[in-house]
């Protein structure tokens, strides 16, 4: 209470001064350029106002629609794959593991690998998925296969794997943070009232951690939209994503208006996809509760 008043007494002059550099930078170097890009998308290469760029997307022969849909599909798959990794691991780190040393060590290792950057992280997968990579060599040694599997590298599988690898720590960190602040006694109370470990997780922990999970889901989806390195290094020719197409318009075809159009389409369709994911998730949850399907099994039912 007292701190609040010190603040009022000093007025809000300092707050304007503190906010101004970053907000002004955002306006000049973020909002205006994006607006400029949107405006550029409405012109043709000679500078005339035109909707031709958007119309060209509908031309199925260009394959751009396929690329867009593949990008969005892989983005959603990356969210799901990241959830599969992040939810159990975040819960383990935040609430289950007893030793703070182990907790710190694991977080340290994940952060260190994460900050090595997407280029190094992506390149390193080639030694795992290659014809003479770790997986093929191991399987051959174990006698499970007689010929190396060629399709591991250069395809959607490799690309999706690397994308997940590159972004899942975002989801892990946000989920971990939001689970960390949950009061242990709340989980203990749920267990005490008869919830199984799974029920306590799905009925108590997950709803409380939802804001962090949602934030993390956005943070893993967004980088997949701008993935250039992963498709190029691991995806092969058949797995182009939108980001590559945009890069090509800017650097090879030198058709900036079309490149701008593709980015606008990417942002808009990405936002719609996220909304759809949210909608489907909430509908599915509602349907589950409507039909009495429990997401967790009460312990005495077993």
């Amino acid at each position: 209470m007292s701190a609040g008043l010190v603040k009022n007494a000093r007025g809000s002059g300092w707050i304007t001064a503190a906010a101004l550099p970053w907000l002004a930078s955002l306006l000049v170097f973020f909002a205006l350029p994006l607006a400029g890009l949107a405006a550029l998308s409405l012109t043709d290469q000679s500078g005339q106002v035109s909707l031709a760029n958007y119309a060209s997307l509908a031309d199925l022969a260009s394959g751009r629609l396929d690329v867009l849909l593949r990008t969005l599909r892989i983005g959603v798959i990356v969210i799901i794959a990241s959830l599969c990794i992040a939810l159990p691991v975040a819960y383990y780190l935040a609430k289950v593991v007893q030793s703070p040393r182990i907790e710190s060590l694991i977080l340290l290792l994940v952060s260190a690998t994460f900050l090595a950057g997407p280029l190094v992280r992506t390149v390193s997968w080639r030694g795992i998925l290659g014809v003479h990579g770790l997986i093929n060599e191991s399987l051959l040694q174990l006698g499970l296969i007689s010929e190396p599997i060629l399709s591991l590298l250069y395809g959607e599988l490799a690309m999706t794997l690397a994308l997940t690898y590159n972004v899942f720590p975002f989801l892990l960190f946000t989920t971990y943070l939001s689970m960390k602040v949950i009061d242990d006694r709340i989980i203990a109370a749920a267990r005490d009232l008869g919830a199984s470990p799974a029920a306590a997780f799905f009925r108590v922990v997950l709803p409380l951690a939802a804001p962090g999970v949602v934030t993390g889901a956005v943070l893993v989806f967004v980088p997949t939209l701008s993935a250039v390195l992963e498709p190029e290094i691991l995806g092969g020719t058949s797995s182009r994503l939108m980001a590559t197409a945009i890069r090509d318009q800017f650097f090879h075809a030198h058709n900036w208006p079309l490149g701008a159009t593709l980015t606008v389409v990417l942002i808009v369709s990405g936002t719609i996809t996220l909304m759809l994911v949210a909608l489907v998730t909430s509908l599915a949850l509602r349907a589950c509760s409507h039909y009495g399907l429990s997401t967790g099994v009460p312990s005495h039912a077993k």
Partner: protein
Amino acid sequence: MTAEENMPGATLEIAELTRHFGSVVAVDKVSLALAAGEIVAILGPSGSGKSTLLGMVGGQLRPNSGDIRISGEAIVELPPNKRPTATVFQDYALFPHLNVAENIAFGLRMHRWAKPDIERQVAHMLELVGLSGYERRAISQLSGGQRQRVATARALAVQPRVLLLDEPLGALDRQIRLRLQKELGELLRRLRMTALLVTHDQQEAFAMSDRVAVMRNGKLLQVATPGELYRSPHDAFTATFLGKGRLLSGTIVKQEAGMLVVAAEGATFTCRGEGQSGSAVEVLIRPEHVLIVPNGSSGATWQDVTVQDITPAGETSDIVLARGDFRIESVVLGLPVHKPGDKVAIGLAPSGPFVMP
């Protein structure tokens, strides 16, 4: 030049001080004057506005209206760093990045003291609070009681004219609290420091202060010495907040030898207090004034009373007595000789019951 030799406390006058938070009136026209060297405790439940009042004296909060004077000089317009006050904050607010000596020296550095003077004053303060030798300790290495002493030393080091203490012992265990109450009170008296203390703990207020101000819903209800407040509370809230007791509705029958004779619950008895014959009044009867005597004793106020319930509470026992719907509590030393169901009578200690104004 040390606090002990040169800087006794100054007078503090608070006049008509008011503070709103939105539509809530946290402090409502509070007036209070402290003599130099006087220790006054503001006692009230949480939300009574006592911390807000303290914050306005310290300068963390601005009043909406009213005046605060120290040695007759108005300080309302001064920012906290220019006020001749120092605060011992709730939970101490010790700087975690500084060690014990640096915490105590902080205010002196801000007041541009010379380095040798700072060292001398820090050593002196640590001696005052009994922490000599702890200069280099990190705050995180200190116990709760030690942190409290550092906070006190830090505030006293800047030689305030008025010391403000916000629940100074609230975070401590009972044992340490009882010891520090005594030590802190003695220290402030030795320094002749004017101190305004905020607490919700009646025992702390009574043990440390010369006068106690009871606060509720932003208003000061009564300011008096601890004994006076306990014996002669002016209203039902003060009466029950400061101790147990039964409030009875009755009528003054007559005045007799400076005392009042009151009729209540089918009996008449003498009370302290003032009032006109025939007026309806509230009478406070504390448990220690309710004496259990054998049934049929002459001079007993109520006969045929049943012992309903006995709760041992350490060195004393609480006893609930019932007579029809009428219930009253008594307290005895040690364990009572009676058991539930016994028939007894009640006598009232002379000059125990008090007619509230």
